[in-house]
């Protein structure tokens, strides 16, 4: 296995991109990453593509060759692979691209992720996303993704005394961060009373505890670290890429206030990179529902189990806190949630942070970044560690 670096990164704006098709946003992100890496299409060996549900959302499958075709690369007959793991599709595609380069099979690989959520109604989009939970034993009985996370929230409150205000603080934080991100779906700030007073979705979660359904695409270019300087002055090394899985349904998990797949993927990643949570200065974590952010911070090892609420509310994960700084992009809540693009967008943000190119979102002195992405309620967790190479 050889070391793998990110050579370039690109993404579209996230949001309700009504004037733009799935193909257009996929191409924009991919070409943006290739331009950033200063590679030509002739150097490209393969493409990996994260996408959750194009068949349901735009009635189109085989999207990996489709995007290549409309990017003008059809006649190169490149290998193109679509990867699916619900909301973790992008992160899992990155893992596959990483393996392909690390193994030596391919040298230059583009990993993209895209989702077009607004070609269906909001309600239909939510129903399609709920297919990332267990359809036969959760959804058929009335469960939705937010309602399953609400069950987790209620139990976390019961077991650890976590307060409603504490996880509401996640949304306040994310919108504060995202207000400085020109690509973000929502750039408005929100206050604690606004989050607490927003209409209920699944109690105790309200409208402002839930990430939006967004359109968007993101892409990175991967290559072997030993030749990375041919393409970029600041290669970002993938220090670890780890995946873990668990039972599909919440009801079959060992417990519901710990996401075991997160714990496993994080521990494997830190072991592999020979690093510890305290080495991380900046993290993009899964905050599709505010409570999920608190639990992720616990399960990634940044705070002890049950302490996520008070630690978050204390400002620990804000800029200038004891750290790491969490979701400088605004996270899924503010930057947006185009499912298959999320994991790649996290990598794009961390590349910008580690290169020192994040402008007024910059976390000063960041050299190690962590990305964490979940599918559904945690049947798939992917953790990446990215490191600035000096």
């Amino acid at each position, binding site marked *: 296995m050889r070391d793998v670096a990110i050579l370039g990164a690109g993404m579209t704006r996230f949001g309700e991109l009504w004037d733009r098709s799935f193909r257009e946003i996929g191409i924009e992100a991919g070409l943006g990453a290739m331009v950033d890496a200063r590679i030509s299409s002739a150097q490209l060996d393969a493409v990996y593509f994260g996408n959750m549900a194009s068949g349901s959302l735009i009635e189109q499958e085989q999207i990996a060759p489709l995007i290549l075709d409309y990017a003008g690369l059809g006649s190169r007959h490149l290998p193109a692979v679509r990867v699916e793991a619900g909301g973790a599709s992008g992160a899992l595609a990155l893992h596959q691209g990483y393996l392909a380069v690390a193994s030596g099979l391919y040298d230059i690989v583009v990993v993209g992720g895209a989702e077009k959520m607004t070609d269906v109604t909001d309600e239909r989009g*939510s*129903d399609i996303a*709920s297919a990332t939970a267990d359809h*036969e*034993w*959760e*959804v*058929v*009985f*009335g*469960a*939705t993704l*937010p*309602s399953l996370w*609400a*069950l*987790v*929230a*209620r*139990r976390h409150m*019961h077991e650890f005394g976590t307060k409603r205000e504490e996880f509401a603080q996640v949304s306040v934080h994310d919108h504060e961060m995202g207000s400085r991100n020109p690509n973000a779906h929502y750039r408005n700030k929100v206050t604690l009373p606004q989050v607490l007073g927003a*209409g*209920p*979705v*699944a*109690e*105790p*979660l309200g409208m402002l505890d839930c990430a939006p359904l967004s359109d968007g695409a993101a892409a990175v270019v991967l290559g072997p670290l030993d030749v990375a300087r041919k393409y970029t002055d600041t290669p970002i090394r993938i220090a670890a890429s780890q995946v873990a899985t668990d039972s599909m*349904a*919440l*009801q*079959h998990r060992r417990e*519901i206030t710990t996401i075991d797949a997160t714990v496993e993927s994080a521990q494997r990643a830190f072991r592999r990179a020979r690093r510890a949570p305290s080495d991380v200065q900046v993290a993009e974590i899964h905050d599709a529902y505010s409570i999920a952010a608190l639990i992720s911070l616990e399960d990634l090892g940044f705070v002890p189990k049950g302490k996520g609420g008070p630690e978050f509310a204390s400002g620990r994960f804000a800029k200038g806190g004891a750290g790491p700084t969490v979701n400088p992009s605004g996270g899924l809540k503010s930057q947006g949630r185009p499912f298959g693009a999320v994991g790649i967008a996290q990598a794009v943000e961390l590349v910008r942070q580690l290169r020192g190119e994040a402008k007024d979102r910059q976390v000063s002195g960041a050299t190690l970044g962590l990305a964490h992405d979940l599918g559904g309620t945690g049947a798939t967790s992917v953790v990446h560690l990215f490191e600035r190479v000096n």
Partner: protein
Amino acid sequence: MSIARFWRETPQRYNLGGSKCSDCSIVYFPPRSVCPNCSSHRRSIGRMVPFQLSGDGEVFSYTVVHEAAEGFDMQVPYVLALVKTVEGPLLTGQIVDVEADEVRIGLPVRAMFRKLREEGKAGVIHYGYKFAPREEDRAPAEPRGQRDASRAATPEGRRGPTTA
């Protein structure tokens, strides 16, 4: 959804048919063909036996759903819960025949056979389990006989918005 897709799950959804590992005695719902608990999975293959849950349990966690799952729009707001059955498995289902603000973690409940949802006017009607507080745990707010009579007259219950 095709009729067959729902029909093939009726033993579980109508009658709470689960399975039990004859090696370690752990009960599973829905039934499994391999035991996740046995250190040697292969030993459990062919040794999972049918096991019917009693339907008794208590609320493990709950939420009041305001933005419904597909086919549940007419029921909002409804209480969705994880119920810890006395035999061990957790089940996901609605809590009905009780006011939402009376539901709490630890509330004893019992499974009952109910209509879950229908697929439009001409589609399949899905039936399965929901949960309600057990009769014997209810506060005796009115004479027993009277209450039973009223419930018999309206078998779907008349206890406010969480009834379905």
